[in-house]
């Protein structure tokens, strides 16, 4: 039955950003927690590029460029957008950005770009998810600062994971530095210890999740220590 009330509910459920009004109050703490969980989930597809420091550095740099750029572009076009097309439009713009990044990588960092595989295009999804979370962000400046902060967080997480996984898995650091910095960087590779197979699990996808889990545990532990006085 299509009662007026049900119709209203439907419309509410479908509208993408109900809080697009300019001076919307900040979301309650529960919403923020939900947001950070989603951000964490959005991070997961990116873990695959964290098996070496160099890949993590390269991808982190891309994230640092793409996130703020996407925020700026989306903020710029939003004033012409009807609410119903905000989501498809975000998808279009971020997909375009990511495609441009892929072309750039193939032209200037061919080998590194090839090692990213499908995960560079996948970045578009992360950008859209995180952009959708910023429903309450009022002006462009705040949105930009927030997206830079998220990007820095993602980049640092990737680099921390890359350090841990490469060290444990291969016993080296900065292997393949030439793919990012050019051929002079070949000697940058540090062989910390020599292993035959290394601790293979660290390099495989489960290793990424385990490392991330340890990282989150460490963060929570530090946060708790800070909040409870000795």
């Amino acid at each position: 039955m299509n009662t007026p009330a049900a119709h209203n509910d439907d419309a509410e459920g479908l509208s993408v950003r109900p809080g697009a009004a300019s001076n919307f109050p900040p979301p309650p703490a529960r919403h923020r927690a939900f947001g950070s969980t989603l951000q964490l989930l959005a991070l997961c597809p990116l873990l695959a590029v964290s098996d070496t420091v160099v890949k993590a550095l390269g991808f982190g740099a891309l994230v640092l460029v793409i996130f703020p750029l996407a925020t700026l572009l989306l903020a710029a076009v939003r004033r012409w957008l009807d609410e119903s097309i905000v989501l498809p439009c975000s998808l279009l713009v971020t997909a375009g950005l990511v495609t441009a990044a892929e072309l750039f990588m193939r032209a200037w960092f061919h080998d590194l770009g090839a090692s990213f595989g499908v995960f560079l295009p996948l970045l578009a999804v992360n950008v859209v998810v995180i952009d959708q979370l910023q429903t309450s962000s009022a002006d462009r400046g705040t949105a930009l600062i927030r997206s830079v902060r998220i990007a820095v967080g993602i980049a640092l997480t990737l680099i921390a994971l890359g350090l841990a996984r490469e060290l444990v898995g291969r016993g080296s650091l900065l292997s393949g530095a030439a793919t990012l910095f050019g051929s002079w960087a070949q000697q940058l590779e540090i062989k910390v210890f020599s292993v035959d197979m290394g601790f293979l699990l660290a390099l495989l996808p489960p290793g990424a999740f385990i490392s991330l889990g340890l990282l989150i545990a460490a963060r929570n532990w530090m946060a708790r220590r800070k909040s409870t006085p000795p």
Partner: protein
Amino acid sequence: MAMPADKRNLARPTVTLVIIAAVLTVGLVTLANLTRDRIARNQEVWIKQHLDALVAPQSYDNDPLTDTIEVIAPDLLGTAAPVTAYRMRKGGLPVAVAIRSIAPDGYRGPLELLVAIAPGGQLIGVQVIRHNETPGLGDAFENRDAGWLDKFRGLSLSKPPQQRWTVRRDGGDFDAFTGATITPRAIVKAVRRTLEFYQGNEDRLYQDGKPR
């Protein structure tokens, strides 16, 4: 019930979306045009590195990157798509041909090979130029067992005999990697099939010009 107002409201967003898509398309096409030459050059450098690892550049005097032929043999080359073969000649005489065949049954998807064969059907060498094998296990030919691919040098269809052209576990002559049998099995099979293709098409592979 669709109201006329709904229809009118659809028009504007549609136009906006189309305009944004058009602007993005123009931007991307421009970028693609700007980067096309660089990307093509990167691809050439990449394939040339692998060619040089197989055949010494001073042993031929043509440019194998332009002296190519596309061949199609889904059963023997592992893909229904055209496969590129790079021809190397000295003074017009054949020196080697390198075929970019596919090993379709890798552990995590197909492996792309570069198989260099001398006139007469003797293997010069094999390179794996692209793969998705498990790091640390299936990619042993890149690090742990780096000499493994070198063992193909000098082999041919009759050496070893056909029934021994497989990994040791299947009664053949080729060692597997520690912890990975599927990858070496796939490579050995693909190399053998590429040799079979070569045997049946040697003349055609060195023919001048593109096939019609």
